[in-house]
């Protein structure tokens, strides 16, 4: 009997979790993209690792 009143709560939790999943995948991960870009550029230009992190992964956007 008591369980019945829990259904709305559980439904709400489900929707929160589902929304979180969707949100996570929509935002562009700017910091990770910067790191990936640096990695590729260092390979293409054959740069030394020295000074690689000077401006490295600073991020102006929030990325969850």
């Amino acid at each position, binding site marked *: 009997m008591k*369980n019945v009143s*829990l259904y709305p709560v*559980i439904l709400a*939790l*489900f929707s929160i*979790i589902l929304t*979180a*999943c969707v949100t*996570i*995948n929509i*935002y*562009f*991960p*700017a*910091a*990770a*993209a*910067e*790191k*990936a*870009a*640096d*990695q*590729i*550029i*260092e*390979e*293409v*230009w*054959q*740069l030394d690792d020295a000074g690689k992190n000077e*401006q490295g992964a600073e991020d102006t956007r929030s*990325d*969850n």
Partner: protein
Amino acid sequence: MNKLFSYLVLLVILLSLTLAAHARGTNIEINTPAITKLKQSMQQRHGQLAPYYTSGAVGLTRDGMIAMRDANAVPLAQRQSVNALVAAENQDRNALYREIARANSHPEWEKDIRATFSQRWISLAKSGWWYQAANGSWTKK
């Protein structure tokens, strides 16, 4: 009570799936055969392009490409081949941005990836190389 317990278990499973998605979402996949191939092709071409970056004949554009910015810095006889190098490089760069977006199952990220790259190419460029500032003017690093 049993029902409630199974709901809780289900919630925990969903929560861990969410966390897994989160961990995946904060990484950018760049290890695919297509991306590796593009990297190699660009790396090989860089040896030929580097002297033109140094001389200022070729510069880094604000949209993550390269361009002939001072054709007079290249002897007439070489101009055709430098133009071809620039065109081939830009083709690879376009493909690279597209492939990274696709490898991460978000083709719509292409323009964000391009924007990120355009900043990082310029940040990592050697001093003396030319790049295009946000307002479009050419600047020597």
